[in-house]
């Protein structure tokens, strides 16, 4: 996993509530057996005017100029500003893969769906929960200020505006530790292999039918 420590970047607004993972990456791209190559298909149905399929040259497809991420002022954005319940729906990890591979490193929203939340942290995509009022204000500022950037500091757990205003955010301490150090979670768990084996023996004694 890539480390995440600090990030200062251009902000793009995704001003709709309940953005689901089917919208973030449509199902036809879930047929891939790879972990990469999802960036061009982030928000595919909103982003292009035609219907996309895996294997197409996406750079040649007609682009929906009205879609916010296609506005030139948001090109190169690394922070996505979103609304309530971002990432609801399916468990597809292709959603955070697509966001990361498109170039986003952090998403700010009032709330996130649970499975999406876990999947994002396991891939180094930082999700930042800020209250609705703060998010409303950030939306106003992004809309009114071209080139609007935010500084995200995971160590300090702060988001700072160009005007110097700073907002604290909460983050799970375990996720924070893994993100700051780019740790392999499987390796960390296997450090407890003896405990897992001991549990397994007790569990088998108590519920032998689970092991028959």
């Amino acid at each position, binding site marked *: 996993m890539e480390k995440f420590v600090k990030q200062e970047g251009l902000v793009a607004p995704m*001003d*709709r*509530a*309940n953005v*689901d993972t*089917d*919208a973030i990456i*449509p*199902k*036809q791209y*879930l*047929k*891939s*057996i*790879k*972990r990469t190559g999802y960036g061009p298909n982030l928000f595919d*149905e909103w982003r292009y005017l035609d*219907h996309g399929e*895996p*294997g197409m040259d996406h750079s040649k497809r007609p682009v929906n100029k009205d879609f916010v991420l296609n506005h030139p002022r948001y090109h190169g954005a690394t922070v996505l500003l979103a*609304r*309530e*319940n971002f990432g*609801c*729906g*399916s*468990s*597809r*990890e292709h959603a*955070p893969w697509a966001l990361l591979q498109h170039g986003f490193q952090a998403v700010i929203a009032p*709330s996130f*769906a*649970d*499975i999406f939340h*876990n*999947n994002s942290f*396991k*891939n180094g995509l930082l999700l930042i929960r800020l209250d609705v009022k703060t998010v409303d204000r950030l939306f106003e500022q992004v809309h009114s200020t071209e080139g609007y950037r935010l500084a995200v500091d995971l160590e300090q757990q702060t988001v700072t505006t160009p005007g110097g205003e700073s907002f604290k955010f909460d983050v*799970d*301490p*375990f996720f924070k530790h893994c993100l700051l150090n780019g740790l392999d*979670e*499987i390796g960390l*768990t*296997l450090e*407890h*292999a003896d*405990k*897992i084996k001991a*549990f*397994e023996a007790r*569990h088998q004694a*108590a*519920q*032998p*039918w*689970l*092991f*028959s």
Partner: protein
Amino acid sequence: MTARTLYDKLWDSHLVHVARDGTALLYIDRHLVHEVTSPQAYEGLKLAGRKPWRVESVVATADHNTPTRNWEKGVAGIADSVSRLQVETLDQNIKAFGAKVYFPFLDKQQGIVHVIGPEQGATLPGMTVVCGDSHTSTHGAFGCLAFGIGTSEVEHVLATQCLVAKKTKAMRIDVEGALGTGITAKDIILAIIGKIGSAGGTGYTLEFSGSAIRALSMEGRMTVCNMSIEAGARAGMVAVDDKTIEYVKGRPFAPMGAMWDKAVPYWRTLVSDPGAKFDKVVTLDAAAIQPQVSWGTNPQMVTTIDGKVPDPSEEKDPVKREWMERALKYMDLRPNTPITEIRPDKIFIGACTNSRIEDLRAAAQVVKGRRIAPSVKLAIVVPGSGLVKVQAEQEGLDKVFAEAGFEWRQPGCSMCLGMNDDLASPGDRIASTSNRNFEGRQGPGARTHLVSPAMAAAAGIAGHFVDVRSF
């Protein structure tokens, strides 16, 4: 001892280790694997030189990409080469890494992973069950802690038999009283989501209880638990009772003999203790639940059959209003349109929500001796598994559907998400027994209305949504 919830009991009995910050290692008993969310996990194992911790925990099948027609052509019948490769990759991964049991494409017992787990007795009360699929919550119907995971977590469970998890809050949803005639489990869960919202359960584990839940069959309880995730909760569950135990008995992977006798008394403890504390309790009056039809692009956008499409101009919250307006535009619906005037042109009966024998019986009962309306372009019935299909055929349901103009298909996820060729076309309006009505879910530009099997069947016959109770 303090009174514990069913969730507390399941959590405590699988706890391997708790770190100081409360992060836990949770032991996983059953790992269901399908072709879409596993290839990158197996690749990760290979790259790291790791082996599965306990192959015997893995039950695998191919369901998302598999076609529901032309099975005589074999694997070559999967027209899309990308889909075919994914199905073949699962074959190779199971061959290389192993599984307790694998039901590959074309196998007589193949089917939707959430249908075959319980059907095979591979889902047992008290288990922790995970799968790289958000509808894993289905298995909670057996008094299991069952939830969907992402691909990194699939790899993590394969390698360590554990998940890194934090305990959620607990919510009890009491549905008390008797359901009206023609009201089903699907109407209960849609009514719950309509009430608490699609993020109402975020951060919670749900327990469905009350006399109306107790009165449901296991199939009905699976339908309710299936859509927990549509209320935002990763897991939903129902306490064990006689029905649970009766359902499990005699299934291929269920314990037998002395082992069965040992298991049953333990399973009977899998209920919330009287006085156990829930962080939130929601109550619904079963008698007040009407047949449900979704009108928008999120499962919480649902109303009753006698209702109307809501008017966004009456919504005060600007974010919500904008969301409703966008949904109505996508759905091509006008505010205040009576639900009974909405005319679906495709009917889909299937998906892990509603593809079990009871669902097919309910739909067949409605269509028996009738014909689909001329305006309906396509009506398909996709059984949840090969075994459900065989049982339905033994009962003659396939003929009932065929005579009514419904196509009788091979099992799989099918048009719930259209990863195979059962993709809806732009502008199609579908009465669907699946679980999600998101934009593009059943096909780009396709419009989904979530309903129960009986309501989908009735809409197919009438050519518009209709109250199945007066049908």
